[in-house]
């Protein structure tokens, strides 16, 4: 199946997109989002449960024999784009990453125990790969694993853990004697301290995790953290690129709508060429970010040899475009865009945060140079 044939949305994908758009527009209007952000969990658990049960998106890329839909990255990114458009604050993305980690580690028992529960929403999960400087190098894992009589014990700290407070299971890379392996920690495990991190992105909370001799379950044979993290990172790159295209489309609709309606000097501000051209630039950003996200997702789904490069290109260009378009939307709105009560800054905050969590422009450029064969 060459990439070219799958680039246009299939009818199923179009259906999935429309259903999600309708669901989120009805159930997560601005007021609902705001009250979720003010709640302790930072998201509505009932809405999260409905999203997963009614639309079945919990187990999107989990194989059918583990209770999932067994769909590909192409479909998954349609979901990520719509959730990104609505700044959906629930632990959807972390759950996907946890599922990806479990599948990549290939521990059948762990998969059988947890994947069905991630799929039906009865359990939430996340991954904790990052040290204090945010980088994912498995080699210098910020957490050490020690083989104790009763089983493995983890020591150390990991930071920027998405939905760390909401997760029932946390998949952590930890350096053991040989190469680092992947470990599963259940929430509430003794010695595990989960503290929220004050963050820029109000619609996606991160936590810092402290491990003090925390009992953990080694996934698979161990020593495979590098390989597993690479696959998890691919999901993360594709998801953030798709979320970015969704957020950009919201900002474009906002900016163009305002440029049409807002009058100054007795005419719509969109009739001023500077404003009109900024809107055209925003459309160009949407067009390229959406195309890159789609191409990268389809390339990964098709296992094509330029999939890794496409994922980095999509993350880099999507991240830069999202930051630029979110700022342009605030600027177009003028004063009201700068207020706390208007939602524009929530997208600006997500754009900056997601870009850095996904590795940041420098990491992407370096990876692209490697993957392109320089």
């Amino acid at each position: 199946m060459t990439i070219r044939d799958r680039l246009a949305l299939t009818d199923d994908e179009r259906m999935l997109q429309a259903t999600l758009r309708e669901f989120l527009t009805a159930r997560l209007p601005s007021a609902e989002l705001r009250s979720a952000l003010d709640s302790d969990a930072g998201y509505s658990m009932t809405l999260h449960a409905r999203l997963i049960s009614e639309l079945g998106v919990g187990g999107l890329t989990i194989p059918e024999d583990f209770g999932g839909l067994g769909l590909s990255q192409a479909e998954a990114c349609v979901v990520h784009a719509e959730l990104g458009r609505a700044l959906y604050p629930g632990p959807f993305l972390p759950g996907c990453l946890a599922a990806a980690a479990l599948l990549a580690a290939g521990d059948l028992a762990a998969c059988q125990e947890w994947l069905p529960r991630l799929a039906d929403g009865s359990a939430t999960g996340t991954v904790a790969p990052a040290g204090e400087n945010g980088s994912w190098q498995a080699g210098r894992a910020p957490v050490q694993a020690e083989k104790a009589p009763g089983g493995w014990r983890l020591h150390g700290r990991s930071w920027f853990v998405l939905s760390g407070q909401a997760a029932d299971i946390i998949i952590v890379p930890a350096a053991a004697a040989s190469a680092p392996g992947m470990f599963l920690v259940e929430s509430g495990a003794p010695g595990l301290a989960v503290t929220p991190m004050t963050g820029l992105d109000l619609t996606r909370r991160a936590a810092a995790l402290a491990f003090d001799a925390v009992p953990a379950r080694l996934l698979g044979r161990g020593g495979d953290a590098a390989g597993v993290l690479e696959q998890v990172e691919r999901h993360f790159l594709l998801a953030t690129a798709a979320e970015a295209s969704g957020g950009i489309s919201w900002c474009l609709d906002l900016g163009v709508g305002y440029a049409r309606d807002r009058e100054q000097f007795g005419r719509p501000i969109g009739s001023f060429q500077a404003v009109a051209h900024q809107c055209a630039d925003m459309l160009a950003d949407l067009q390229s970010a959406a195309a890159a996200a789609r191409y990268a997702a389809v390339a990964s789904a098709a296992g094509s040899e330029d999939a890794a490069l496409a994922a980095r290109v999509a993350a880099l260009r999507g991240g830069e475009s999202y930051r630029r378009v979110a700022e342009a939307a605030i600027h177009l709105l003028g004063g009201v865009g700068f207020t706390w009560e208007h939602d524009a800054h929530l997208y600006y905050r997500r754009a900056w945060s997601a870009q850095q969590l996904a590795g940041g422009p420098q990491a992407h450029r370096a990876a692209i140079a490697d993957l392109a064969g320089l």
Partner: protein
Amino acid sequence: MSDPPLEDFLRQAEGWLAARYLAAGDGGQRRFTWGEGDDEVRVFQEPDPVAEADALPAIRRWRRELWDHGYGWIDGPAACGGAGLPAAYARAFERLTRRYRVPGDAALTVSLGMIAPAILRHGSPGQRRHWLPLLYSGQQIACQLFSEPGAGSDLAAVSTRATRDGDAWRITGQKVWTSGAHLADIGEIICRTSGGPRHHNLTAFLVDMRAPGVTVRPLRQMTGGASFNEVFLDDVAVADACRLDEEGRGWQVALTTLSFERNAMGHSAFGGAGILSTARLIGLVHAAAKQADPVTRQEFGELISHLRVARYTQEVQAAQARAGDAPGLEVALNKIALSENMKRLAGFAAGVLGPALIADTGAWGTYAWTSVLLGAPGYRLGGGTDEILKNTIAQRVLGLPRAT
């Protein structure tokens, strides 16, 4: 009789091609190897006039053979000599030809990509039957006579006049930035034919480029070469039968022709896509021994991301078109992206080569990059400036009120 299945059509076409032309070897893409062959990286082709004239007969023969075997106008209506097959067959055939060493249609981009489709849309049945076979069979080549010194972005302000003279017209004026005028047999020209209101005072004609009173001169551009011409018309006679569409409908004819131009310009193959190939850029960095320099690797990664995104965008659009959801005017954004990528290419080459870019040390593939640097500004002007294209996008894609 219904269309032959696409597979059969392609198999037959491949047979026809293979019998006449060598395979291009590796998947049609001429393999790029640093140091081999011509290191030219031009934004606009600046064919040396002699070489160009020499190449033309082969191109005409290639068109004629295609035409005589039904491949000349695959998706053209049978009434005008076309094969009447779906557009997908034509696109598939075009992709197929890239796998063979064929003369190709680069020199006919305007003639077949813009003028012929305009004649199909605005020509009378008689004109279509007369002109289209001549163009698609390569017997005649058409060029576009639109811009004038005083009418660039504001095309409607053309001052070239066509005055009625019995059942003919006399045309006097000057046209600029016409590519291929020196090779063309006919030119689609927009002239002012009345003192009427703006957009209603223009008429389109097909003028004989070799008629008395037509003078074609190369227009030397800042690159040093000439990819375009100036055309002077001094009281040139044109039969009323060569009037394209009604008197006063010249503006509609112009818009149709320009819309075909934008689609073509956005396509990555246009504008010397060869200069955008990753292999050539990697060769450039290795030649300057900077592949280990982290700063160069960052600039390389940034550049590649822009080039790839431009390709991904076109491939997604092509897929959407195949699925019946062809993109509209937003395709013009591709042209802006290509212009920006050319600027980025020049900047990257400067970063890697330093002074070796701006003065020729004789090293292969270094000073040649000045063609990109000198051609890029022209690419932001030809086929509609960035500003004009963004106006169109804002108003007709985003629905914003007319920007003044």
